């Protein structure tokens, strides 16, 4: 066991897979000597050499497109895109090829690759450094989209992502990269993709969240507890495949649902979760499911971010409203 941050836990997962499988390679902008701008790949080039962990030219489409080429020819590439907002130059490769090569080739080629990047707001960053694009990737058929919220999950899910024969978008909540520390085993373990986790059981309302919003939700749940409200908290962990069963069960029990996520609320994962709640638990719904999500605005720079970012208080406000509906 070691005390790990999310950064350290992912680094550890990468290390384990690099060590046990020579077909694993890692590249992207500044992932080599620099170890990535958030140091997620720190030390790996030194340990595994420049052929296995290396800096690429500054071109996201190229990074992702070449990784697909590697994936169909025997390697298991893991590529880093430097920030959420810089996934878009790679969007065509992801939407047109990474997600489709398996289907296009009728399974002749599998696509065992991971595209990982830090995402989300709350770090006083420049534009394009605070986006939460999970809905965009989840809407594209053929991908798996994963978001951990703890060091333990980050490690276990990353191991699964690397071992998946399907391409995985692995989004890392940068705001809590180092904020959460946890004892995590140094041994290899994996957490299956596609399974949500009930973090806390409750009876009055189901809160579905993921990434950095788990911690904020937990704070809100404390406030709710004081107000005598019992909240069930689900960490979605996998955006696609989405764990319809766990959501359905919980909402059938509590009759109420709130989604907490940083992304723009319209046409979002929140919308999908409301659809699922309707499909799975319609007769049990006692209040309209609500979204506590980002507005349909560009994520503001530091001074405006306080208006955009979701506070525990705002979550609590919605909990109260939903319970009192």
């Amino acid at each position, binding site marked *: 066991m070691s005390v790990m941050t999310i950064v350290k836990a992912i680094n550890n997962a990468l290390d384990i897979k690099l060590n046990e499988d020579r077909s694993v390679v890692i590249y992207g902008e500044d992932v080599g000597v620099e170890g990535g701008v958030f140091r997620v790949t720190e030390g790996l080039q030194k340990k595994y050499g420049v052929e296995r962990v290396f800096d690429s030219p500054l071109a996201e489409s190229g990074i992702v497109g070449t990784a697909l080429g590697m994936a*169909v020819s025997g390697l298991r590439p893991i590529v880093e895109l430097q920030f959420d907002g810089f996934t878009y130059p790679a969007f065509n490769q992801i939407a047109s090829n990474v997600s489709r090569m398996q289907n296009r080739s009728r*399974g002749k080629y599998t696509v065992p690759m991971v595209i990982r990047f830090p995402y989300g707001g709350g770090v006083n960053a420049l534009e394009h450094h605070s986006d939460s694009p999970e809905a965009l990737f989840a809407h594209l058929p053929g991908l798996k989209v994963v978001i951990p919220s703890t060091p333990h999950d980050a490690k276990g899910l990353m191991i699964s992502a690397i071992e998946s024969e*399907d391409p995985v978008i692995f989004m890392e909540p940068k705001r809590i990269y180092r904020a959460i520390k946890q004892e995590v085993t140094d041994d290899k373990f994996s957490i299956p993709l596609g399974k949500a986790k009930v973090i806390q059981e409750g009876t009055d309302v189901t809160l579905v969240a993921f990434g950095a919003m788990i911690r904020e939700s937990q704070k809100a749940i404390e406030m709710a507890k004081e107000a005598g409200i019992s909240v069930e908290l689900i960490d979605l962990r996998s955006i696609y495949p989405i764990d319809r069963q766990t959501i359905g069960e919980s909402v059938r029990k509590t009759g109420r649902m709130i989604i907490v996520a940083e992304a723009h609320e319209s046409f979002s994962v929140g919308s999908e979760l409301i659809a699922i709640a309707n499909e799975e638990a319609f007769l049990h719904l006692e209040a309209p499911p609500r979204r506590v999500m980002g507005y349909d605005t560009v994520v503001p720079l530091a001074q405006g971010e306080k208006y955009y970012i979701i506070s525990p208080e705002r979550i609590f406000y919605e909990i109260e409203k939903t319970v009192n509906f």
Partner: protein
Amino acid sequence: MIQDDLPAIFRDFNPLEDRMLRVIDDEGNVINKELFPELDDDSIIDAYKQMYYERTADEMAISYQRQGRMYTFTPNLGQEAIHIAAGMNIRKEDWLVPAFREMGTLLSKGVTMKEMFLFYLGNEHGGSFKNVSKTLPIAISIGTQLHHATGIGYSIKYQKKNEAVFTFIGDGGTSEGDFSEALNFAGVWQVPIIFTIQNNQYAISVPVKSQTKSVNLAVKSVAFGIPGIKVDGNDFFAMYLAYKTASEYALSGKGPMLIEAYTYRLGAHTTSDDPSKYRKKEEEEEWALVDPLLRLERYMKKMDIWNIDKEKLRDEYKQEIDAQFVSAEKEKAYKIDDIFDYMYTDMPEDFKRQKGAYEQFLSWKENRK
């Protein structure tokens, strides 16, 4: 500027001087004896036959489409020398990463016309080329395939294999960002790839002069520090030589190369296109005179190695191709499974639910009747 260890032709036909590699002239006369590739007569005859097969298959496909028996087709007419010269230089161990207009090369690699037809009959099983190893499916989204080729190049180098990657793009495709990015990655990584630009003068209706101001397309290699050469794409021998040279270069670990194959799309862009809207008949006629098959035939006749009865061969090919088409037409019906089963290696629960819901609808529909 030009590397020392570069094969001579890359120096002698420097694209910066807008020179073009040719081995035979339009009449089939050898104009560069010292460059004539090592090819015995049988191989030349075989090359012609392959080109002729592609030509015949193309014509058949166009006619099936006209008969309403097949969806849109992308003809290869006029670009056969490139395809077969490439095909003859691609070994089983080498990778082929196609765009969408190199049918002859696919056939050389082992793809059958049945598969091609099946693809254009709207069945993914045709386009998967499942029985041919190291061959990616047809790439429709222009430019993206070059990155895949480059990534495969990296795998080869990383795994220390003695393999090369052959990949293709059109003149129009050179404008896409992915074209430049891929050449740049390949240059930095020094991977064994032969990039071919089939410059057939048009991107649908848009002439190459509206695509770029560069003097030619081979010269774009300079921006990425890789060798480039412009080759007469209607000259089978020039193309053969270029591929032979590039392939040796790549296999000896020296890195990627860019070949501009200067040619002309004799047919329509696809069967839904009408070139008379955007290009002159005279232009088409001029290029028809230097049809790569004609030029090779002229050469062969001059050298007295022509022993082909075209009529007869054509009939033979037609029969064979028609059998393949009919077999593709008769291919077992497309199943619901076919749209669901290849999306994921292990099908997610939620996805199974969708498939199940659809099956329920179908049985409801069945019961209604």
